[in-house]
């Protein structure tokens, strides 16, 4: 779960991490009021849950309230990486003397938390990692030990030039780590962590992500969730307990298990089709999940065929079959659907669907071939030919 820059800075502020004054506005007139209040040049920043705002024209400096209105109007008109700008952050412009990077995340390979620091802040950290990896300093923190000050200071002194900056950064690093653990973050980034005024270090930007698995134990985190983080389909899918990602194609997919769901999309593509979505109905599935999955997929106007691919383990095939039959009582199925059902309780599952007059495939490649033939993307790719095997270019 990701939050906006301004929410991250509010969270920083509650933890006592120095952040600039800020106002969040939802229209250009609000930008005027905020700029008047600050009484000096301001920075106008689009609030979208995506990086690369600066390059997209979503961050601008305004010299006075009139200018702030114009800049805000420009920014409110933008759509950045698919997200229309609905909120804009106004913050007093500051003279930046130096920019650092400060971040904490989970090191998957090292099975530890890791503090990441760089004296080359303000740039894309992934690009920096590729181009100048020597400028990135890391400190692994294992859960059975404290964040020891001697180890922390050692890495801070490699990055920060003066003792005054080391002292300020130490406080912030320790606080951020505490926040990371207390709020079950998966990523906390301060970029830039900048020197303003005389020698004061301030979090000029924030990026905070929370572990979705842990949101249940943090009411305050759940309250920060932004509905626009997901498309309507993605949100409804989440509410129904389905993992869902919208894709560009026309073949609706209902699969159990993330790995098989990805592989199913890959094979559809390999056979010349184009998947409309990734959808994992999850572990112990109930018929309701299938009802919801079909409902969400069917309302996508691009979908012209559906593939259900279930290999039962913890998911029982009879549950899936019942779900499909229940869904069809509630939903008018407008497009051809191919069902592939195999695994735990498969005989019962297949019997239920066969009795209801369904064609049920046992092999994946047979099922994919069939659904690709039904789909517009598959027919376009195949010309007039009937498909007999994978079409790989």
């Amino acid at each position, binding site marked *: 779960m990701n939050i906006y820059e301004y929410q991250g800075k509010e969270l920083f502020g509650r933890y006592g991490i120095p952040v600039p004054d800020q106002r969040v506005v939802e229209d250009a007139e609000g930008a005027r009021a905020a700029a008047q209040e600050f009484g000096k040049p301001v920075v106008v920043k689009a609030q979208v849950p995506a990086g690369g705002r600066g390059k997209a024209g979503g961050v601008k400096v305004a010299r006075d309230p009139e200018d702030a209105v114009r800049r805000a109007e420009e920014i409110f008109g933008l759509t950045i990486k698919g997200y229309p700008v609905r909120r804009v952050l106004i913050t007093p412009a500051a003279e930046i003397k130096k920019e650092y990077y400060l971040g904490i995340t989970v090191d998957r390979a090292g099975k530890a938390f890791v503090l990441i620091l760089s004296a080359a802040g303000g740039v894309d950290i992934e690009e920096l*990692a590729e181009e100048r990896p020597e400028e990135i300093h890391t400190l692994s923190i294992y859960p059975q030990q404290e964040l020891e000050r001697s180890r922390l200071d050692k890495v801070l002194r490699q990055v920060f030039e003066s003792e005054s900056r080391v002292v300020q950064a130490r406080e912030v690093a320790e606080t951020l780590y505490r926040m990371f653990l207390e709020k079950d973050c998966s990523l906390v980034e301060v970029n830039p962590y900048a020197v303003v005024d005389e020698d004061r270090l301030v979090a000029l930007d924030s990026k905070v992500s929370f572990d979705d698995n842990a949101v249940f134990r943090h009411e305050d985190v759940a309250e920060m969730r932004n509905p626009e983080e997901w498309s309507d389909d993605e949100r409804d899918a989440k509410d129904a307990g389905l993992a869902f990602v919208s894709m560009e194609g026309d073949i609706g997919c209902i699969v159990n298990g993330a790995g*098989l769901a990805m592989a199913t999309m890959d094979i559809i593509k390999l056979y010349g089709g184009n998947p409309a979505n990734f959808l994992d109905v999850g572990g112990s599935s109930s018929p309701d999940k299938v009802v919801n999955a079909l409902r969400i997929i069917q309302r996508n106007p691009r979908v012209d065929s559906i593939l259900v691919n279930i290999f039962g383990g*913890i998911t029982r095939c009879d549950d899936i079959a019942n779900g499909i039959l229940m869904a069809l009582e509630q939903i008018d199925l407008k497009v051809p659907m191919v069902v592939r059902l195999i695994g735990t309780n498969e005989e019962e599952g297949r019997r239920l669907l066969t009795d209801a007059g369904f064609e049920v495939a046992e092999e994946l490649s047979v099922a994919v071939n069939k659904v690709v033939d039904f789909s517009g993307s598959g027919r376009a790719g195949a010309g007039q030919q009937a498909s007999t095997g994978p079409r790989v270019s």
Partner: protein
Amino acid sequence: MSILIDQNTQVVVQGITGRDGAFHAQQMKADGTKVVAGVTPKKGGQEVDGIPVHNSVREARAKSRIDAAVIFVPERFASSAIQEAADNDIPLIVCITEGIPVNDMVRNYHYVRERGVRLIGPNCPGLITPGACKIGIMPARIHSPGTVGVISRSGTLTYEVVHNLTRAGLGQSTCIGVGGDPIIGSDFVDMLALFEEDPGTSAVVLIGEIGGEDEERAAEYIREHVTKPVVAFVSGRTAPPGKRMGHAGAIISGGKGTSEAKVKAFGDAEVPVADKPDEIPDLLRERLGT
């Protein structure tokens, strides 16, 4: 003839009175696994399909030898279930549960390692030595005894691959789902080391997916330490970019995590990568020279 589990392995099921725990305890037993006990707090004294239920792992261990624990406990209680099994020196802990907070798993990982026991999972289908022992949720009937080892980050995709192996007459020594979470108890490299040492395993199928760098590390390990043939599959080639969480994580992995990077890493290690699961049997046969 297998790794980690065989026909003598005695198993306790943690969370045996839940819907999934009860269903799969029965399935495991029906598939020939020695399920000697179940655990659910405050439900001691009951029975599930003739399996005695205890209040704690300690109580269960007092009654019979336990070689492995399998966890079906809901995500909020799964970390304490893992720790309870580790505290009772159960040498093999298999956690099926999905949805454990990642930061808790960082702690659990070190907790079990410090106690010298092995964790498989979480968010995994478990493991099976066909015809001898099944600890998990996979449908046993798609497997057949043989000499191919299978390691996977996925559940159902593993079944797909195993189904294809069995149909092609390639039986399996042991099949392991290591789990789909960012932090898992045992990874590809841990399992490759065991398969390399196992005289009952002649070749290994490795099923990876996008994210992290476990496949890259596995490829490197294979190049240096594995003499047996390995065939790989990587899912997620069509997954849209930018949907992955944890953008700072890419710093540590140095831009690794895409399917392209993983396929390339396997290529560099001379490990063939199948485009579809049903190509795996032929690739294995080529490598085995059979």
